[in-house]
């Protein structure tokens, strides 16, 4: 048996993260002699999946707050624990990984009290790896967490906790029964859209799927109902019977909205259909991922895709590359701008290349976030500098022990790209970061174009703040000068706003590239060089007369300082 049982995807195991919620049911014979049925959900922790987390929280009565005793409280811990508090959970603090030499339980317990403000004096000390403290944890669940409530005789009211696609069974829906009883063969209705399905099978995870005859109040289990698309099963939705259903849905349901967009293009344009296939298959299993076809003069045919956040983007991209074997060019992530036109209408802008003509534009609004950063105090200065550089407005700064908690109001577009990388690098990996969307605000934003050899390269267009445009433009053309190989002719590289050039570099012509010696024995070697050159050229995108390497489309936008 694999050690990490619940994180099934390779990417989850590799990154040590949970993307999909998972459940398990345990029959536990407690010290009081009773046997209890425990339903556990392992939720994703990352901010991108905050909505899924909030639904999981509503599906259960209490939480185990598991904190790594070698790392301590992270920004993510905070966001999730507040969700649990919002859900009125009884919270049991658990310190994990105590078998490791670096474990420091007393310090971490103190941190939990300082930073989160819950009593951690009785925090359980556990090693999931060696089994220490597991028994105590199960006892704590039985003793400290409230038992589920609910009425068997009431109309069926079940929360859709998560869902995923299975090639054999169709969509598998994870549900928590609040009221009523769900049985195999019944007809159910999704309250958000009224769609009706016939339940093929119901069961529980132990952790393998095990069929049951019925699921009653307090139980967490799965159902299948020949549903073809995950899209038809929305997390947070309320499930009831088709007939004699409940009157009101559970509160808090929200359809998911993508906040970060980027273009995905196949490196080899012949793989476009494969990419379409891959994206369609992934979308089957991921309702929060949206896509539409996009054509770029530089990159050819591809898709503009919307994601819940950066991790979500990376996960989808990795899965396409790995599971479908397609090399991708990913364009710089962009946020959704609100473009207010002079005629009073508002347009959503997902791609800077689509920015309407300025003469018709009244003003622009951009999404802002509230970012929470926890950082050891020796790196605080660097973090503040980074946030200021990214147009941040400081909202709060507090200390908990030797760590500072900084809260900043930041434009999302300054964060979507390389903020997290920069944060990690200036803090040597010691900072943790989390954010939530706060809304839109007007700012002086302009579209900056990049011209290579006097031709605009659409994939390099970005939205920037007017006051920072010169600096960004300069940095970009300097980067591009290094990224684009020398050609047989000199190439001007410019950044421009509207028709006005704000930064310019010239890539000088290639001066020397010749094999000095080439005799009989060298033909084969020379041929290999030629093949290498040909292969290298295929990794470039031709733009007018200029070949631009793929990595340039991402690297050019990164800010080093």
């Amino acid at each position, binding site marked *: 048996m694999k050690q990490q049982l619940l994180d099934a995807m390779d990417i989850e195991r590799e990154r040590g993260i949970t993307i999909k919620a998972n459940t398990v049911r345990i029959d536990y014979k407690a010290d009081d002699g009773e046997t209890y049925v425990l339903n556990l959900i392992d939720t994703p922790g990352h901010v991108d999946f905050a909505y899924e987390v909030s639904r999981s929280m509503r599906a259960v009565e209490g939480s185990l707050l598991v904190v790594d005793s070698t790392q301590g409280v992270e920004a993510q811990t905070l966001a999730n624990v507040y969700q649990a508090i919002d859900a009125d959970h009884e919270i049991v603090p658990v310190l994990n990984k105590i078998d490791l030499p670096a474990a420091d339980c007393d310090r971490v317990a103190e941190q939990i009290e300082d930073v989160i403000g819950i009593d951690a004096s009785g925090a359980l000390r556990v090693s999931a790896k060696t089994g220490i403290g597991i028994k105590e944890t199960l006892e704590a669940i039985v003793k400290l967490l409230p038992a589920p409530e609910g009425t068997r005789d009431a109309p069926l009211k079940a929360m859709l906790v998560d869902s995923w696609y299975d090639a054999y069974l169709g969509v598998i829906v994870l549900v928590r029964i609040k009221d009523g009883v769900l049985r195999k063969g019944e007809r159910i209705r999704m309250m958000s859209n009224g769609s009706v399905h016939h339940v093929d099978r119901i069961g529980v995870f132990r952790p393998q799927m095990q069929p049951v005859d019925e699921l009653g109040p307090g139980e967490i289990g799965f159902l299948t109902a020949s549903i073809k698309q995950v899209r038809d099963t929305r997390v947070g939705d309320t499930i009831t019977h088709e007939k004699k259903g409940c009157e009101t849905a559970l509160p808090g349901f929200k359809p998911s909205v993508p906040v970060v967009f980027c273009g995905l293009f196949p490196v080899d344009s012949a793989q476009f259909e494969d990419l379409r296939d891959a994206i369609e298959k992934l979308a089957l299993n991921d309702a929060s991922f949206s896509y539409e076809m996009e054509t770029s003069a530089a990159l050819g045919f591809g898709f503009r895709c919307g994601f819940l956040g950066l991790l979500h983007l990376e996960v989808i991209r990795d899965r396409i590359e790995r599971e479908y074997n397609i090399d991708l060019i990913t364009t710089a992530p962009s946020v959704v701008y609100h473009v207010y036109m002079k005629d009073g209408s508002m347009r959503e802008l997902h791609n800077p290349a689509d920015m309407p003509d300025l003469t018709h534009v009244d003003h622009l609004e951009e999404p802002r976030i509230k970012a929470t950063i926890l950082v050891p105090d020796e790196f605080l200065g660097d973090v503040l500098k980074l946030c200021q550089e990214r147009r941040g407005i400081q909202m709060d700064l507090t200390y908990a022990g030797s760590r500072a908690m900084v809260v900043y109001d930041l434009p999302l577009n300054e964060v979507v790209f390389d903020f997290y990388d920069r944060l990690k690098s200036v803090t040597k990996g010691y900072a943790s970061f989390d954010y939530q969307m706060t809304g839109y605000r007007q700012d002086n934003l302009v579209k900056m174009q990049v011209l290579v050899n006097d031709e605009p390269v659409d994939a390099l267009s970005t939205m920037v703040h007017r006051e920072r445009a010169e600096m960004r433009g300069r940095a970009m053309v300097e980067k591009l000068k290094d990224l684009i190989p020398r050609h*047989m*002719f000199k190439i001007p590289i410019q950044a421009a706003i509207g028709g006005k050039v704000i930064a310019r570099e010239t890539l000088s012509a*290639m*001066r*020397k*590239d*010749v*094999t*000095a*010696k*080439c*005799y*009989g*024995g060298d*033909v*084969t070697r*020379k*041929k290999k*060089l*030629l093949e290498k*050159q*040909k292969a290298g*050229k295929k990794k470039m995108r031709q733009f007018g*007369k200029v070949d631009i390497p793929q990595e340039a489309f991402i690297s050019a936008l990164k800010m080093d300082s």
Partner: protein
Amino acid sequence: MPSANSSMAVLAGDWRNGGFGLYVHWPFCEAKCPYCDFNSHVVRLIDQTAWANAYLRELDRVAAEIPCRVLNSIFFGGGTPSLMHPDTVATVIEAARRHWPFANDIEITLEANPGSVEAGRFAGYRDGGVNRVSIGIQALNDPDLRRLGRIHSVAEARAAFDIARDCFDRVSFDLIYARQDQTLADWEAELRQALSMAVDHLSLYQLTIENGTAFGDRYDAGKLRGLPDDDRAADLYALTQAVSAEFGMNRYEVSNHAHPDAPSRHNLIYWRYGDYVGIGPGAHGRITLNGQRYATEAHRAPGAWLAAVDNGSGEKPRHCIDMADQADEYAMMSLRLTEGMDIERYQTLANRPIRSNAVDKLIDLGMIRQDQGRIFVQDQGFMILNAVIAELLAD
């Protein structure tokens, strides 16, 4: 395009455009030079008789496959072929003569190091049939010779060169430039000395740092400093062309200069994409048999090669070169020559027209010139020939 049958006939004879030569590789040196990535080995004792016999067996084997060709050239390369006993050289030449009729103007070249011991053997080589030597002088100042890891001095080199001139009508020598810390002025002065010494042929190579050499390791470790960047290397190359022209020693190939009647015929066979037999450890060949061109390569390690010859053949399994690759090879080699590439010959091998948009683009950029059915690389184009070829041959 010619019809299929006549094109087979044309292809079977394509090698005639370049001629037919024999390359003999001698894999031993007294000391390994830090920049050299050729197949050379340093050993204490060499059984000259065993090596002579092995070469003869290989010649017998290959000649049986390719009879009745007029031999245009023999080239003893290495390694350091001037470590061969003159009798060993004479034996090989004699055997070649038995197998293939010699062209009237056959060129028989031997590469030599400019040491005093080697120079003492020059007369012996001449008596054995060698009619041209190519001497690895490499530099005309002692500090640079030492940095290049050469074991001779300028004085020794000049003395060896004088002896060579007494023994042979045709003498060439090599210099390596674009060295560490070499200025344009340093190189110009040295080049002028070289050109005033030169008889009829001079090879002027820019120092190239190859993987797997001592220089390669030092370079990777960041310890090989003062090498010219591409811009300075290009300036050095341009200077070399201008100064050589003053002395009537124009470039006829990227790095080779000669009087109009004195290019190396052997090397022209490579660059005109003729057929050549390669024998000796690691030697490569291109031979056409029954209308099919093959790439041959011998076992590299001297001991392994000797053993393989003993078992019947020193060659590794041969590879057929398909037509598209032949066309690429022809273009890669012929474009190195100022005489240029024959477009019709290229198109026949490639069985498709040359990419006219690439040709037009390169003409526009001043990299090549097209005239009377040939493509000639221009001055600017020679400096970036790899890129020019890649553009022309792109899929």
